[in-house]
Every structure is written in structure tokens, then in C-alpha cells.
């Protein structure tokens, strides 16, 4: 009997050891490219070519300073910030409005409206880029941040409405009914009683949208030609062509672009993981 237990536990240890090795190996594969990118930002060309994996002299910030001073990096970064922040704000406002109406009121067509938003979940808008291009040209929005913001709002609304409707439906009725008894009007009930309760779901919805919008490359590629309006991913490709032979500067540019989102992710990893997989987990 005792023997059996021992053998079983040995087997478990062996199995767990194998799993641990697999996980460590995988984490090395995941992190090494990012570490090499970071290290190379502090190296000269010669150092990168001769010893790509060595730990650099971290006081050598020449390449990083060149990116900061000689390129439009800050401009691209602020453009990305403006576009992302405005899109998220609009998505949350419009998404909450629709979700609140669908979840809290019984009216004819509410089921249909929810379906309408859900159908938008699966539509690849990239394939409608030709009509979108002509439409934006007719609106005079080529080379305008508004074209990007409007598109991001339309693509972000379906998941947002989906997440928020489910959450708002689960809120209890008591508070709302009591306020109604006291004669509060609907707008006041929504604004001061219900919306404060919706905040956690709004955070999830915001994170879910922030990553694809901040990282998007396709729509700026089509709609933005003016250098002063380019977003970070788009600006990065131009800058790679310009400094093509100075690898220290290239890695510095990549490092600086990746840094904000990496720091945010490490600080809020739980929220990022929950938010980005929220649409895929029922």
C-alpha cells in the first residue's frame, strides 16, 4: 500500500517537473525577444552584431536620445493618445446608453436592437475599406483624426454593448424602484444611481478596446497621409525606413513604443487579461 502511494507521488512529481520545465521554457521564449529588444536599445551597431545577447552598458542612452530628439516620436505618441482617448470616451458613452436602455427598460424591439449590435461582432470592417474610403472622402475626413475615431467607435460598440448589457441586467431593481417612488426622473436614476454601479464593467470594456485601438495600423494606413496626424504604429514604419542602418536607434524606437503598454500591462495584468479575453469567454 505504502509502496503504491510512493510510486504515485513520484509519478506526480515527475509529471509536475516536466510541466514546470515546459512552462519555464515557454516563458523564456516569450520574454527573450523583448529582453533582446530592450538590451539592444543601449548598444552600438558593432555591439549588437558581435554580442547580441550580452548585457549592455545601461548608461549609453545615445540611441534613445536620438529617437527622442531627432524623430517625431512624441508627436506620433500624442496623436495615438488623442485618437485612443477620444474613441474610448465615445465608445463608453454610446455603449452605456444603448446597453442601459436594452437592459433596464422593456420596450418593443429591444431584443432586435441587441441582436443588431451582436451581429456587428463578427463583421470584418477591413473588407469594407473601399466604400469607407469613398464615404470618408465625401465627408471630407481623409487626413482627419475623426475618420479613425468614428471607425473605432463603430467597431468597438458591439463588444462593449454585449459586455455592459449583461452586467447592467444583473444589477438589482430595489434602488431604482425606491428612487422612482421618490419621484426621481429616469435620467437622474440612470446618472446618479445606476451608473456608479456599472464602473467595473466599464473598466473591462475600456481595456478591451484600448489595446486594438492603440495598436491599430490598418486604418491609419488608409486614411492618414499627413505626417502631423500619424499614429505611433504608423509613424514607426516610416521611422524604420529613415534609420534603416542604425540598429541601436531602431531598437530604441521599438523599445520606446512598446514601453507604455508593457508598463501598463504589468501594473494591471489581471484587468488586461480579463478585458482582452472577455469577448471570448462566456
Amino acid at each position: 500500500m505504502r509502496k503504491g502511494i510512493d510510486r504515485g507521488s513520484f509519478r506526480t512529481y515527475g509529471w509536475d517537473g516536466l510541466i514546470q520545465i515546459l512552462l519555464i521554457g515557454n516563458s523564456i521564449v516569450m520574454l527573450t525577444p523583448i529582453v533582446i529588444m530592450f538590451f539592444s536599445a543601449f548598444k552600438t551597431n558593432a555591439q549588437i552584431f558581435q554580442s547580441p545577447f550580452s548585457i549592455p552598458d545601461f548608461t549609453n542612452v545615445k540611441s534613445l536620445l536620438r529617437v527622442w530628439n531627432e524623430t517625431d516620436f512624441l508627436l506620433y505618441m500624442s496623436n495615438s493618445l488623442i485618437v485612443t482617448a477620444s474613441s474610448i470616451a465615445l465608445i463608453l458613452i454610446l455603449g452605456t446608453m444603448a446597453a442601459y436602455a436594452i437592459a433596464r427598460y422593456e420596450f418593443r424591439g429591444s431584443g432586435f436592437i441587441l441582436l443588431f449590435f451582436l451581429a456587428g461582432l463578427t463583421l470584418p470592417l477591413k473588407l469594407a475599406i473601399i466604400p469607407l474610403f469613398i464615404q470618408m472622402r465625401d465627408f471630407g475626413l481623409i487626413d482627419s483624426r475623426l475618420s479613425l475615431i468614428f471607425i473605432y467607435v463603430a467597431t468597438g460598440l458591439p463588444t462593449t454593448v454585449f459586455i455592459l448589457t449583461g452586467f447592467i441586467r444583473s444589477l438589482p431593481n430595489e434602488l431604482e424602484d425606491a428612487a422612482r417612488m421618490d419621484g426621481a426622473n429616469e435620467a437622474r436614476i440612470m446618472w446618479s444611481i445606476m451608473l456608479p454601479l456599472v464602473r467595473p464593467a466599464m473598466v473591462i470594456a475600456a481595456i478591451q478596446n484600448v489595446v486594438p485601438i492603440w495598436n491599430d495600423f490598418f486604418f491609419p494606413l488608409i486614411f492618414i497621409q499627413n505626417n502631423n496626424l500619424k499614429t505611433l504604429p504608423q509613424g514607426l514604419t516610416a521611422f524604420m525606413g529613415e534609420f534603416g542602418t542604425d540598429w541601436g536607434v531602431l531598437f530604441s524606437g521599438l523599445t520606446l513604443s512598446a514601453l507604455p503598454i508593457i508598463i501598463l500591462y504589468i501594473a494591471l495584468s489581471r484587468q488586461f487579461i480579463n478585458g482582452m479575453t472577455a469577448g471570448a469567454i462566456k
Partner: protein
Amino acid sequence: MMSSKLTGRRLWIAALVVPPIAFMCLFLVYPILSAFAYAFYEWRGLVRGDFVWFDNFHRVLFEYPFSERTINAFKHNIFVFFALMVLQNGVGFILAYCLWRELWGARFHRIAVFLPVVLSTVIVGLLWKLFYHPLFGAVNASLRAVGLGSLAQPWLGQDSTALTAIVVANAWHMVGFPTLVFLAGMQRIPSEILDAVRMETESEWVKMSKIVWPLVAPSATVVFTLLFVGAFNWFELPFIMAGVDGNPHEATDVLGLYFYRTAFGSMSASAENFGPGSALAVLIFLFIAVVSSVITVRLRRREIQL
């Protein structure tokens, strides 16, 4: 009194739902419907010409040089789909199982595997392009470092390896997503079921194949469908790493790149051509819609409700 209150309520609801619906119609529904209409017209630059029935479709499917390129690109998309099915979803399932054991350090490994997912495709593409550089790239440098210098090669520069090299970069970028979706599915399996299985068998394989795999079927449905849509929409990573022409020699050409070149023009394909471009978009759209709904329906059927 009563009726005015009701109209007031109706107005309030309308005020809430009309603006978001209007946005969706204007920037999502209308463009997609127009995309279908555009494919049936002849286009001169940005100006719409005559209604030409199925001419554009005929050109992209059956006329040289469009048809060869369409078929070449389509084959590459199929390869990308199956390769990522193994490298991304298959590896993701194994990693999810490893993380599910909650061994020491699992939290760290979970954060590490998802880290590349939050990076922009542009950063990932440019980074891996530098790594694949034949002379100075980290990939060949590490091969030389472990004495496999003879395997060093221009990964992105030759037909035989270029597409696979981009697929590997994609798998590195996105493997964390299926991993964590599968992991969430596994964590939802009730512990009573797992305890009951433990009484019956010691075999980890039986547990995985008979219990865990069927019970995470809803997660599998989602990641398979999303991968399918993603593989046939593939654009940004090959655009960054191989260029709009699918270099070298169209060995990395996929439908997304070919559609972009046809619609908006490039050095090699000259000016924009909205007719065949729209026809390609409609074909890709219909293909994705039909196959992904078939996949979803078939996979849903094997899901078990707990």
C-alpha cells in the same frame, strides 16, 4: 397625464438608443452593404461607372493575371490557418493545461505568455524582421552560438522559408490568447467532476481526452472560429514583414495583401482598381461568413452544457 408620461419614457429610450445605432449604421452597416454593391460596377479611379453584373468577379476568379494571384494567395491563407492551428491553438491548449495545474510560479508564466499579445503587430513585425536579418539577426546569431551555423539562412529572403517565418512570429505574438481562453475554460470545470475522475483512473491521458477536452469545447469553438477569421483576414504582419507585394516572388502573398494591392495600387500593380478590389472583398467576406458559421454550428453541437 398617463399618456404624456409614456411618450416621455419613449422619447427617453429613443434618446438613449438612436445615437449608438446611427453610428453603427453609418460606419459599419452601410459600408459593408455598399461593398457588395460596388463589386457590380465598373470603376474609373474613384468614379463609379456602369453596372457590369459579374464581370469583376469573373476577372478575379478566372482571368489572367488576377486568377493566378487569387489562387496563389488563397493557398497561402490555407497554409497559414493550419500552421497557426498547431503553433497557436495547439500549443495554447498544452500551455493552458500546464498553467491549470497551478504549480509554483504559474502566475508569472501566465503574465509572460500574454505579454506579447498586448504589443502592436507593427512592433512585433519590425522586431522579428530585425531578428530574421541574414547577417546581423538574432535568429542566425543564436544558431551560430550553439554550433548550428550551417542552418543560418535568409529566413525572410527565400521562397521556401519566408511564409513559415512570418507564421512563427505570429504564433509568438498571439499564443497567449488561446492559452488564456482555454485556461478559463478549464478553470470552470467543477471540482466534483475532477474528483470523481480521480477515483476512477490515474491516467492523465484519459482525464484529458475524455473529460477536459470535451468540457472545454466552448473555448475551442471560440478560438477556432477567431483563428479562421484571423487567418483569412491576415494583413498587417505580412505587410510589415514581407511588404505589400508578398516578397519574395509572392511567396508570402495572402488574400489581404492581394486585396489591398488591387484596391489601392502599389509599385507593381499600378493604380487603384476598385472594381476587382471590391469583388475580392465580397468573395473573402462570403467565404469567411459561410465557413465560420459552419464551423461554429458544427463545433457548438459537440459542446456539453453543464
